[in-house]
């Protein structure tokens, strides 16, 4: 499964892209976040304020409750500021 991070989340984590093998029992975006936060300080900083974190599965916005089934690319990023 490919994970992507953007903007200050990428800066906090130290890289913008990684491939991970998820352990059993991680079924939602929220559970994935918990698992990532336990991996190290950079992840903990990136996800500290979970309210502002946005997520996308296969390039579609999703909520933390979204199931991971069928996901090949999961992205995490701050609120967007384009335009």
């Amino acid at each position, binding site marked *: 499964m490919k994970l992507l991070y953007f903007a200050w989340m990428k800066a906090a984590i130290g890289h913008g892209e990684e491939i991970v093998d998820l352990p059993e029992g991680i079924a939602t975006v929220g559970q994935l976040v918990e698992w990532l936060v336990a991996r190290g300080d950079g992840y903990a900083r990136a996800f500290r304020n979970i309210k502002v974190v946005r997520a996308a599965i296969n390039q579609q916005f999703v909520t933390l409750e979204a199931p991971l089934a069928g996901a090949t690319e999961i992205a995490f990023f701050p609120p967007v500021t384009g*335009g």
Partner: protein
Amino acid sequence: MTVRVQEAPFDAGAETAALTASRTDIGGIASFVGLVRGEGDAVRALTLEHYPGMTERRLAEIEAEARSRWELLDCLIIHRVGRMLPGEPIVLVLCASAHRGDAFAACQFLMDWLKTDAPFWKQEETPDGTRWVDAKESDDAAAAKWK
């Protein structure tokens, strides 16, 4: 109906001319150009990061939404990424319609949704270093009025 994400600057006049060339059914073109503001000397440059792939997909979806809501004869969105200086253009939205009301509404809608629903992030270079621009509540409010 075109969506482009590019590093290069764009020429709003040339894009408008291309849109109207050899057709006589367009009554009006509403457009918006967003520019990098210098905020005095507080912003020395702006770098736009985006999510390649999802960006183009979201822009196309937002543009299709505008076409479903208003009678548009043509529509163009260009959004730049990379580093740009104060005074440079960031984004161009052009909406052509037989009547001005549809063109204006669609153009404003596209800008509001671009601000809140397309995966771009702005980083400013200031005299004190770089900082990521915070999302604005006023942008969320502007986008919400179209829901």
